[in-house]
């Protein structure tokens, strides 16, 4: 298959080298109109991005960065983010575990338009069900964020979906790609705004025969967002995402007397939210939302025994319904945000091994108060939240942050917080706790560079083991994180991110907690809208069954041809894991080898 795709990719690359003029900038044309062609224009790009005022360690992935990656689902985007480790990097659309600064996967809260998608039985967020094309931006908080979000010991990934196109009544995109092992991704998007009413509708299908054994995928998704701008300022937004996924998780070949094991999963999920944003005046803003998540998941294990195959099925129905109310008040020196959350959650488990249905439900409530107090160049952020978790006890989560602006574009930040994670609705007293402390520096003052450095310390206790009987342990993970970006020189810019984590549990180094994580990026974009991106990812998984034998390099190419009459056509292609390296935590979750794909996006 690879031999068929690579010549296609080469052809696409040659097509991409064709140059067409770029569209003019509106500001330049209006300045030229008023000043004449000889008008003086001064433009000096000096910093990749400005420093911001937040005390937490936050990384934002913007729409442009997402578009350059030729991503299929959410993990393809998070893969390139500093401080994030993906345990498995396999066929698009198959399940993936994610860690932030070496946290466990069930410590990360993932939200889509403020709706949590972590399941209730083991707090697993199914990232691979979220199509990349619906995402406008991703905001990642590293370290505990419980003083705002409740259960989020390791961090928060907040996925913000696209808004309707505002300038036209109708706008559309059709995209399709084809790659190794019949990996096909097709999508149609329609969006626009008529008077006060905006809409964004999309549907797509991703499928693959599987880049690894029993790692096939089939993901269908429908997404819609309706937005009504109120006659006064503010808006009402209804969003719904439906996904149906069937995929192979892993395969353990038999032999030597051991049976073979194939594990697959199926999942149907509906996430909806109705949100009201209403600025009452220039000081008060009201945010209110209703949300629901309904999920049906099934895991099927086939064990190849000499007496015949044995199939075991576990089913989980996972529902939550709730809402939030938030009020922000801004004074001269102060911003106060107060809010409350309520969710009724219910999980029903049916297992082939243990007949019958186990049902658990709970009412979760939380109230919080966050204050940002700014005096001169110092901003202080005390926050606190109290949660009635319904089954994991009552939790108080305070945090305190401080930032000091050294210059307009340089900042020192410090943040400390207590947080928790509800790791399972089915295990009594499964709440794990953390104290996180982060100290950082961010600057855009060095010409042509943007730098960020953070020291972190995450002290976690009541961590549940998978052994029997279950015992609770204390873990310490501390380390440092560095990020660097450059401005483009000859249309080329560089990014790098490095995370060092030192971990121990009762004096013993923790296995499979990544000690070194390195992210590299080389980005090229010329005025003719030829774009190339080389992304490198290295994770040293530190022992266990894992392997880390080199950097995984991915190359993404795209070229956009503008046609003023009807829109634009973008040709793109990617080669992933160019040098066919190995990087995984467990043998049976071996990462995908080299594979390639080509595609086209038509915007009209």
């Amino acid at each position: 298959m690879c031999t068929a795709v690579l010549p296609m990719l080469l052809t696409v690359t040659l097509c991409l080298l064709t140059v067409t003029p770029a569209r003019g900038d509106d500001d330049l044309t209006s300045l030229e109109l008023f000043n004449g062609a000889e008008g003086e224009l001064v433009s000096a790009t000096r910093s990749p991005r400005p420093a911001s005022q937040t005390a937490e360690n936050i990384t934002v992935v913007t729409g442009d960065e997402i578009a350059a990656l030729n991503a299929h689902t959410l993990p393809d985007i998070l893969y390139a983010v500093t401080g994030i480790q993906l345990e498995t990097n396999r066929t698009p659309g198959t399940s993936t575990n994610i860690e932030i600064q070496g946290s466990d996967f069930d410590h990360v809260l993932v939200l889509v338009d403020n709706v949590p998608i972590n399941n209730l039985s083991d707090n697993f967020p199914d990232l691979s069900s979220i199509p990349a094309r619906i995402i406008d931006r991703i905001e990642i908080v590293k370290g505990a964020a419980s003083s705002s979000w409740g259960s989020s010991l390791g961090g928060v990934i907040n996925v913000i979906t696209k808004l309707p196109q505002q300038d036209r009544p109708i706008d559309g995109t059709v995209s399709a790609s084809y790659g190794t092992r019949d990996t096909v991704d097709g999508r149609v998007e329609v969006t626009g705004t008529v008077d006060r009413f905006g809409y964004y509708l999309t549907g797509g299908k991703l499928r693959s025969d599987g880049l690894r054994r029993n790692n096939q995928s089939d993901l269908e998704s429908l997404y819609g967002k309706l937005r009504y701008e109120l006659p006064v300022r503010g808006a009402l937004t209804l969003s719904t995402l439906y996904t149906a996924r069937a995929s192979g998780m892993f395969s353990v070949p038999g032999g030597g007397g051991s049976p073979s094991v194939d594990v697959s999963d199926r999942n149907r999920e509906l996430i909806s939210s109705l949100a009201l944003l209403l600025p009452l005046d220039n000081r008060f803003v009201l945010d209110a939302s209703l949300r629901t998540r309904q999920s049906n998941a099934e895991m099927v294990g086939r064990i190849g025994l000499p007496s015949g195959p044995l199939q075991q099925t576990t089913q989980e129905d996972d529902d939550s319904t709730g809402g939030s109310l938030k009020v922000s008040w801004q004074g001269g020196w102060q911003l106060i945000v107060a809010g409350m959350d309520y969710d009724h959650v219910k999980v029903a488990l049916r297992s082939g091994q243990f007949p019958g249905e186990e049902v658990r439900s709970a009412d979760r409530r939380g109230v919080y108060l966050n204050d940002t107090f700014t005096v001169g160049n110092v901003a202080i952020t005390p926050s606190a939240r109290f949660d009635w978790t319904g089954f994991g006890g009552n939790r108080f989560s305070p945090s305190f942050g401080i930032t000091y602006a050294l210059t307009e574009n340089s900042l020192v930040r410090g943040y400390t917080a207590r947080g928790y994670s509800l790791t399972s609705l089915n295990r009594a007293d499964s709440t794990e706790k953390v104290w996180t402390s982060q100290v950082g520096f961010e600057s855009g003052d060095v010409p042509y560079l943007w730098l960020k450095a953070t020291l972190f310390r995450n002290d976690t206790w009541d961590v549940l083991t998978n052994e029997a009987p279950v015992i609770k342990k204390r873990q310490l993970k501390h380390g440092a994180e560095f990020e660097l970006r450059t401005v483009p020189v000859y249309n080329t810019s560089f990014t790098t991110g490095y995370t060092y984590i030192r971990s121990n549990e009762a004096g013993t180094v923790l296995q499979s907690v990544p000690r070194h994580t390195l992210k590299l990026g080389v980005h090229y974009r010329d005025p003719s809208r030829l774009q190339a991106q080389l992304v490198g990812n290295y994770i040293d998984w530190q022992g266990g069954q894992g392997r880390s034998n080199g950097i995984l390099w991915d190359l993404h190419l795209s070229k956009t041809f503008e046609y003023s009459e009807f829109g634009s056509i973008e040709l793109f292609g990617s080669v992933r894991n160019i040098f066919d390296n190995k990087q995984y935590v467990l043998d049976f979750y071996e990462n995908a080898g080299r594979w390639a794909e080509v595609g086209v996006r038509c915007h009209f």
Partner: protein
Amino acid sequence: MSLLRLLLLVFFTLAPTLALAYDVLLLQSMHDKGYDEAVRGFKRDYRGSVRRIVLTDYVELDLTRINREEHPKLIVAVGDRALDLAQKQHATPVIYMMALNAKPHRVAGGVTMLLDPGKYLSVLEALGCERVGVLYDPARSGAYVKRAVTLAARSRVKLVLREVHAPKETPAMLASLKGKVDALWMLPDTTAVSPVSTEAFFLFSQAERVPVVTFADVYLSMGGAVALTIDRHDIGRQLAELAQNVLDGGQLEESGAPPRKVVTRTNEGVVRQLKLNPLAGH
């Protein structure tokens, strides 16, 4: 101890005093003399705290993050790109100036770059021109031309309209006005007036011996007769008043206000050559 106090005093004296708490985030598309002049006018009359960000100073500017973390009460957009970006911050009111091409939404008010059409009509009337040719792109200037037609109905001026949908159509549309107009009214419309078509207006003016009334000084040296231009500094001052009004709880007008001050300049040579009425009072 006194040394420690002295060191602390020196530290706090020398420490930068950037005020992160501010009311207005001034977002400017790029460095330009005209934009800077408008910003100077704004800062002259607006006494509150302002943070200014010039978009071209940064390769990546995450305005959503800045807005959420620094909580400005108002965004002042200067230029088209700045307005386009500012309007995506739905919870924060936006006012704008020096934005010609962007489409302001209903949450944004401001001062446009388009003078009240009545000012042009009175000048055309004073010049003694009755049939006035106007080239415009309906997608860009349709609403403005509609207002001009309504106002013209109350005057002696009759507008002879020609639509252009691409810059290359301008010379042909001008040719279709031969013998049918006493003057040309050049609009700030980037489809009708582009680097490739500007000369055609003045060639028409010379050939047909009709004056061109325009919107920028730069066209006087090319052969324009009269220019009614905006005063960028005063636009900034006008916007400062609007900003204060919004911060005091006033509602934004859905459509932008025209600049209140008009600067009229004439090319005396052309006026004499074409034997036009002098512009007394303008």
